[in-house]
Every structure is written in structure tokens, then in C-alpha cells.
């Protein structure tokens, strides 16, 4: 196919175009030799810590990601390089509000549906490129291959017209009116209009004004699109996709920051958009690109008041806090770092394999990196029961290690060792190890611990409790999901769990379930991304 594309040179250096307000910007050609020399220079200057992941060369950002051996999930020592254009912040900022009001904002929602359907159709049309992108993603992803494949397989599903329609019709619904109508124009709503005190005072002291009566007023609502800046996280390739779709569904002008570790899938979608709908208003007001997170020079202009109407941040506590501080005058929607837990009643021992199978599914969502993945299992059992359960968990994790081996990085290996020699010295460990390295582990922990120590990779902490009610004190708004077993206990505890700030209380094994219209972190997100206008 002609035109800009994602392509590797003969040395494997991948050139990744950026989409800048509808235009694909290709990076300069930079040879592997120059790239390696640049990284060698920064490596020499570094006294320690993790290796640098990027350098700026010419007018481009060059990222390097370690290539992993897919069988062992260990770094091979080789790097995969991506070159992306370094654009200036002013190139992505939308400042012609009248043009937006007259163009993108007046687009019919049906046109949005046609657009995403077109992307869905295009996805995979260039099968060679899609296969190549998958191969590049697989080469460096810390997620096991089955997760990479399943994640990319979700793209066409999420691009479905029915998903767009359901999301908009539910998230933006009010007065029992489907959401798309509010996106498409002013909608009269059957509200009773009350005058303000000023009108009462007026009525007491002055003659009526003709045609000026609250009883005659007609309330109207509209969900106006916005200018959105999405700063996404790299814990899943679905994160940039979710951000992109939310912007499209709400007919909004958007800048999507691709995160290190998940650039290629997002760049592929941007490429599809530019190729399939080059002159479409949704494309012309869309930017998808990489810049280093926290780069003051790039981000400060974006965070100025009036530059965006919404800033959406996914990520680590430091990133979220930093954006909140720097963009104090722009409405910010944050997806804070959260984690999942499981509450498992003693009934689990009636059918231990079933309970364990469900619990591991809740744990291994996105290979335990998703914010809804269960990290701690509160189990109604004594120590002996907890150890029996933990042994079964270890065996189940071992099976997953076989068909979906995870990459426990060296620092995650070190963190488990640190835990065993410190805060978890009193724990009883059940491990799957080979060659001195952890593949997965379960720790039965007799006392509370600091969740920030958890490496969130193939480690389950089992906390025995006398009663599931005893586990309630460990729940708080930092817990996204609490899967409960068995069902009667879930129904009994659901409101009490929710009252503690937990967003999702599914049956055990269903923490990863999702559906169009499902709230995210307690929010109907599309409703947060539009501006509700009245007239």
C-alpha cells in the first residue's frame, strides 16, 4: 500500500508515523548504527538504575525495548528500536473553536458509527502489516503471547458499531432518552422549570413581562463534544484503544499520547484512520503520537488553561498526581492506580478446583497487570486450610506458566526475594521455580502488609480470615474489584463492599468480564468527557 506506513528498515529499525491532526508525519530515517551509538553514549553517562529507554535524535524520538525470548520470557540482550517523529506541542492543539463548532461538533452520530465500522473493516485488510505489527509487539511484550494475541483480537470487537451505539446510548442517556440524541443536537427534556428568587421578587414588585414565564420555558440539553488530551498507560494495548474510541464516540477533537511499551498498536489504528478516512472531520481533529511522559517542554503548553477541555490520565500515582498539579485549571479525569482482591468463603473447599480456577482467572487478567486483577485472596479458613488452598493455587498457576509463561523481570524477581527476607518473612510460600528463578508464587500471609510491595506479576497473597466480614476492613477506594465466592455471600456483602469504595463486586471468576455501557472506576466515562450544555 502506498503512502506512509509502519515499516522496518533492513536492520529492523521500525519507523512509526505519528498522526498529527489528520496528517501522517513520518520520522526521519535514522540508521541502527547511529541509534546504537546514541544509546551507548547515554549508557556511559548513567551511573545506575534501569537502562534509558529513549533518546532524541534529529527530529525524532527513538525508543528501545528489550527483545524477550518468548519461551523463557527472559531478555535476549537484543533491542527493538522504534523511531517516531518529534512534533511540537502547538501542532496538536486545536484552537479554532468556531471551526470545531461548525464541523466536528455538528457531525451526526450516525457518521461516527460509519467511521468506526470503516476502521473495523479496515483492521486486518492489510494482513501482512497486521501480522508484522503483531510480531513486533510480541517480540518485546512482557505479556505472554496468548495475552498479546487476545488483546489485539479485541480491537475489531471494540470497533463494532453496536459497541459505539450502546456506549453512547447508555453513558449519555438521561431522562430515558438515548445518549446519541444529546450528541446530535439540543434535546427537549420533560423537566419542570422553577423560577429563581429574582423572578419571584420581580413578580411581587413589577408588572409581568410578556412571554416571560417559567411555566412556558422549555429545558434543553446537549452533550457537546470537547477537546480531549488522553495520557495513556502502557500496562495494556487496550488502554490507548479505549482512549481513542472514547474520543471518537463523543465526536471530540483528541490528542492521544502513546505510552512506552504500547506504541505500535495505537500507531496502527492511527494509520488505519488516516488511510481509511483521510479527510474525515474525526481524522482531521485526531492526533496520535508519542512524547516522553512528564516532558515539561512538550506538556506545559498542553496544560495551559483553555488548551483542552478534558485531560484523561491513566497511570502510576506519580504521573496522575503530576498531571493534576500541572493542569489545575483543566477538568481532569483520572484512572488512578487500583488493584483487585478476591473474597472467598469457606464453601470453596466443597469444590476447591472450581474455586481455584475462578480465582486464578480473576488474578491473571492482563497477566495480573490490570487494575482489576486480583492480587490478594482473603480466604475464610485457618492456616492449614489456607495452605491447602495456596498449594492448589500454586498448581493452577504452574499450569498457566506452561501455556502462558510470564516475564518476571529481574526487578520483580528481586522484589519477591526482598519480600521473603523482610515483610513476608513470616509468610508460608508456595512457589513455582526453575533455575533459581520465580515463575509464579503464592504466599500465605498471617498479617497485613503494604500493597505497594506487591510486584503484581504472578504472585498471589492469601490472607486467611476467620470470616469474610473480617476482610471488609481491608477494602477502600484503592480497590477496584472484589470478586466474591460463593454467590449467596456476594449478594449478602455486595453493598457493604461497595460502600467502602470498591467499584466492582462480581462473582468470583468474572472480574474480567466487561460489556458496553459498563462503568469504569465508578464513572460513566463518556458522560465525563462531554460538556453537558443547557439552553
Amino acid at each position, binding site marked *: 500500500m502506498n503512502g506512509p506506513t509502519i515499516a522496518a528498515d533492513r536492520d529492523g529499525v521500525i519507523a512509526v508515523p505519528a498522526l498529527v491532526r489528520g496528517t501522517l508525519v513520518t520520522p526521519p530515517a535514522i540508521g541502527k548504527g547511529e541509534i546504537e551509538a546514541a544509546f551507548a553514549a547515554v549508557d556511559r553517562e548513567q551511573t545506575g*538504575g534501569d537502562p534509558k529507554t529513549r533518546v532524541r535524535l534529529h527530529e525524532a524520538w527513538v525508543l528501545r525495548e528489550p527483545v524477550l525470548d518468548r519461551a523463557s520470557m527472559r531478555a535476549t540482550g537484543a533491542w527493538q528500536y522504534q523511531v517516531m517523529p518529534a512534533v511540537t506541542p502547538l501542532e496538536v492543539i486545536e484552537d479554532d473553536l468556531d471551526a470545531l463548532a461548525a464541523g466536528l461538533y455538528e457531525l451526526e452520530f450516525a457518521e461516527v458509527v460509519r467511521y468506526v465500522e470503516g476502521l473495523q473493516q479496515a483492521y486486518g485488510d492489510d494482513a501482512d502489516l497486521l501480522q508484522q505489527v503483531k510480531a513486533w509487539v510480541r517480540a518485546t511484550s512482557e505479556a505472554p503471547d496468548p495475552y498479546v494475541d487476545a488483546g489485539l483480537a479485541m480491537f475489531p470487537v471494540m470497533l463494532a458499531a453496536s459497541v459505539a451505539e450502546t456506549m453512547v446510548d447508555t453513558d449519555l442517556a438521561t431522562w430515558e432518552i438515548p445518549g446519541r440524541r444529546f450528541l446530535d443536537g439540543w434535546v427537549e427534556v420533560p423537566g419542570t422549570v422553577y423560577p429563581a428568587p429574582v423572578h419571584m421578587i420581580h413578580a411581587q414588585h413589577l408588572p409581568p413581562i410578556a412571554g416571560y414565564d417559567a411555566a412556558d420555558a422549555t429545558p434543553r440539553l446537549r452533550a457537546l463534544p470537547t477537546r480531549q488530551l488522553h495520557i495513556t498507560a502502557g500496562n495494556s494495548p487496550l488502554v490507548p484503544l479505549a482512549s481513542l474510541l472514547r474520543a471518537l464516540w463523543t465526536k471530540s477533537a483528541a490528542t492521544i499520547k502513546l505510552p512506552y511499551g504500547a506504541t505500535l498498536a495505537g500507531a496502527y489504528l492511527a494509520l488505519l484512520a488516516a488511510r481509511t478516512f483521510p479527510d474525515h472531520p474525526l481524522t482531521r481533529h485526531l492526533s496520535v503520537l508519542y512524547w516522553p511522559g512528564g516532558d515539561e517542554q512538550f506538556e506545559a503548553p498542553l496544560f495551559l488553561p483553555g488548551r483542552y477541555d478534558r485531560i484523561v490520565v491513566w497511570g502510576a500515582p506519580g504521573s496522575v498526581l503530576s498531571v493534576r498539579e500541572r493542569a489545575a485549571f483543566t477538568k481532569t479525569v483520572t484512572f488512578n492506580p487500583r488493584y483487585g482482591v478476591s473474597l472467598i468463603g469457606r464453601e470453596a473447599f466443597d469444590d476447591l478446583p472450581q474455586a481455584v480456577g475462578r480465582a486464578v482467572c480473576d488474578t491473571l487478567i492482563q497477566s495480573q497487570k490490570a487494575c482489576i486483577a486480583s492480587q490478594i485472596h482473603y480466604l475464610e479458613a485457618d492456616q492449614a486450610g489456607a495452605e491447602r488452598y495456596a498449594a492448589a493455587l500454586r498448581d493452577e498457576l504452574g499450569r498457566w506458566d506452561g501455556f502462558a509463561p510470564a516475564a518476571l523481570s*529481574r526487578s520483580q524477581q528481586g522484589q519477591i526475594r526482598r519480600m521473603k*527476607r523482610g515483610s513476608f518473612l513470616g509468610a508460608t510460600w508456595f512457589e513455582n521455580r526453575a533455575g533459581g528463578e520465580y515463575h509464579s508464587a503464592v504466599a500465605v500471609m498471617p498479617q497485613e502488609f503494604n500493597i505497594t510491595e506487591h510486584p503484581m506479576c504472578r504472585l498471589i497473597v492469601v490472607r486467611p480470615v476467620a470470616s469474610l466480614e473480617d476482610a471488609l476492613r481491608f477494602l477502600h477506594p484503592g480497590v477496584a474489584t472484589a470478586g466474591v465466592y460463593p454467590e449467596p455471600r456476594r449478594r449478602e456483602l455486595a453493598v457493604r463492599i461497595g460502600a467502602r469504595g470498591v467499584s466492582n463486586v462480581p462473582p468470583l471468576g468474572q472480574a474480567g468480564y466487561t460489556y458496553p455501557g459498563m462503568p469504569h472506576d465508578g464513572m460513566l466515562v463518556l458522560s465525563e468527557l462531554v460538556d453537558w450544555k443547557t439552553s
Partner: protein
Amino acid sequence: MSDHHAEIRTIHLQLTTLAMRWAMSGSVNEDYARELRFAAIRANHRHYWDNIPIYRRLADQAEVPREADTAQIAAEMMSTDHIFKSYPQEYLDNHDYGAMNRWLRQVYDRPVNADVAGAASIDDWLGRLNAAAIHTVFSSGTSGHISFVPRDAYTWSQLTGLGVSYIPLFQMRQGAARSWERAASRAAARMLGPDGFGEFFRRRGLRGFDGIFLSFSGGTQGTQVVGQTLARMVGRATFLFDLDLSATVVRALVRGPADERERRLSDAFLEATVRRRADNFRRVLAALRESAAARRRTLVFGAPFMIKEFCEWLVAEGDEIALRPGSMLSHGGGWKSFEGDRIDEPAFLALVEQSLGIRPERVTEGYSMTEAQVVFPRCREGRFHVPPITETVIFDEALEPLTGDDIYGGLGFLDPYAACYPGFIITGDNVRRRSGGCPCGMSGVTISDIGRATGREVKGCGGIMAAMQG
């Protein structure tokens, strides 16, 4: 005295003599020093293995026998500082100090029999331990989860006395003393040996100084203990906070007061520290002026963020003061929770000189940990020197020991002087460690480029003081 104590005290005496020689001459016989350190580490390992339950649990987990060599101990038997806060929080929440005694026994080499009947607060408990000759230093991180490190009388004497035997000699070699003082101290060190010199320095070394301590006059938090120890050596001591740094209050400030009593204590503490800070600064300024007027030299001590705050206050008030030539400033504890307030070393030194008139070469710093007896003094090249009396280990991210003359990673140490609790500690700091001497002229190992490892809690004074920022 047990066999272990007799053996370890003999080695300690030899090590401390070595430290003094190193501080005076800049070098020692490295092989001999290593031999002594390793002997102490092996002896402590055996003692811990026999007597400290949590250490034995780790040994069983790692399948390390009683007789182990230092390499195996370094690879398998070093623990994180979490072991000193491995008690369930409900013990403190419920004021169950009997349970805290039983927990403390897990990290201590003998029964903890302190009478806790009627103890109503952490401070009460610490007081009862102290009465039972278990001197317990506490440290709080940003989570408010307090760690407790117990010491018997002998180890406590090392904590408060070991540094005196070599740090003054080190600092003098770096130029932080008059030439005649340096000569006199060297002569005294040679004649008197470790104990005698320590005693000499305690009695005479700082007697000509007035001390200004930008810290608390009481309480057993690590940095505060250093200040209190120095305060006993100077001619006249003035503390910025003339009250105890109470563990009860520290926990209440970080975690929130549990009851009305804790609320009252916290309020009173904040009133005395935060709300009356300007009053306290004025009182300290008056003491500084008095010393200057009396033509007495001054030793200023504190954590860097507190020194910076005080110096900036002096400048803002137009109250800069020129202390008598020969005055000194000593700081420790790092910036920690005040990383955002950090200023670089030249700016810090310039601020100190502008506001107090203390010359850069008379500003000293030490690096240590709550769990260690040995302090690493900083040289004029900005490196912290590891005295030849303690063993450092640098870990990679997978917690495997690294080797090399210039390496970066997580810092661990095996403190030969930790005779009664597990002193083989993996810290939360990342450092650059270099061997083979320093441009300042000292031999041996140095550390620099200190940073907190990702995800590790900020501990020590910084963690506590952050909670006091109104």
C-alpha cells in the same frame, strides 16, 4: 559474659583501633581489616542463628547452616529493614505491649521481660524497655508504620560512642579543625586507644563549642539520638525543639490520632513545633548571638531540610549572623521526604555561609541507618567513606550481590557491631560504590549518588518531619 560477647568485644576493639588508624592516616591493611570484619560477621551469624528467632526462620527458609562463610551470609542472610516493623499494627492500636514484647523478642537475642503493666502508649512501652536496659530506637516512614530496633547496653554504647572514635579524626584530616587541634587529637588517639580516645573526645573534644541542635532534645529516633549524644559533649546546648520526639505522636500524626488523648498530644506537639516555629527560631537565634558575643565557637547540627529552613528564615528576617571562625555545621539524614525542597550542595553551602558565616570546609555530613552503628562520613569530594570496620554489599535489581570497583545498586551492609539484633540489612537506598581510593586522599570504599530505590518508603527523620508540615 557469654562466649559470643567476649569474642565479639575483642574483635570490636581491634576494628575500632583500625578505624582510628584509617581516619588518621587515610589507609589501613585491607586484608587484615577484611579478616577482622569477616570474623565478626561469622561470629554474629552464629549468635543470631542460635538466639534470634526471626533470623533463624530466615536461615531455615534459605537452608543456611550455623557455620556459614561471609559470602553465603551476604547472599542469603541479609534481610530488609521490614523485620523491625513486622508486628501486626493492631498490637499498637490495642496498646497490647505484652504482645509487642513478644514480637520484639523475635528480633532480639534474649527474652524481653520489661514490665508493661499499665503501659498506655508507645512512649510508655519504650520507657519500660529502657528501664529494662533495652534501648530501642524507633524510625517512622511515610506510612506511619514504625520500626523498632532494640539494643542492649553494650550495643547502645557502640551506637552512641563508636563514631566519636574515628569521625572527628576523619573530619580533621579533611580540614575541619585547626592544625594544633588536629595534632593534639592524633597524639591523644595514639596514646589512649579507642576507649580512651572516645572518652577524651567526649569530655574535651567539643567542650569549647556551644551546640545548636535543630532537632529534638528527647526521644529515641535515630537522628535525634545523634543530636542528643553530641549535646552532651558541647559546652552549652540549645535545641530547636525542647521536647521529646514522641513515637506515639509521630504515629498519630501520620496515621491519624486513635483517641482523644492522642489528638491532644498531637495538637500540643504541632503547637510546639509547627505553630511556634518562628518563636523557636528566634530562641535559637538568641543563643547563636550569645555564643558569637561570647566569642565561642558553635556547632550547628540537624537534618539538611531543617537547616535550610532555618538559614532561609535568617536571610528573610535580615538576621544573618557571622559565627565565630572555627564554628562547624554537621548534618545527617538526607533530604528524604523533602526531596522537593532539595538544593544542590554548592547552593546549600553558600546559604550556610551567608546566613551563619560557616565556611564550606567546616560543613560535615554523615550517612547511616537506624539499624547500624557505623557512620559513613562525607569527604570534601562529596563521597561518603565506608570505614574499614563494616562490610557493604551492592545488590542488583534481582537482589543478587554485584562485584566490581565501580558499581551501582541497592546498598546492603553487614554491621559487625550489631551484637544483639540482626545487623545484616538491605537498605532502601541505591548508591554508587567505588573502591580503590578517593581523590581526597583516603583509601577504601566510598558511596555516592544516593537515591531511594523505586517503591521504597521514605524513612527516618524525613518521614517524621514531613508529617509536621502543618
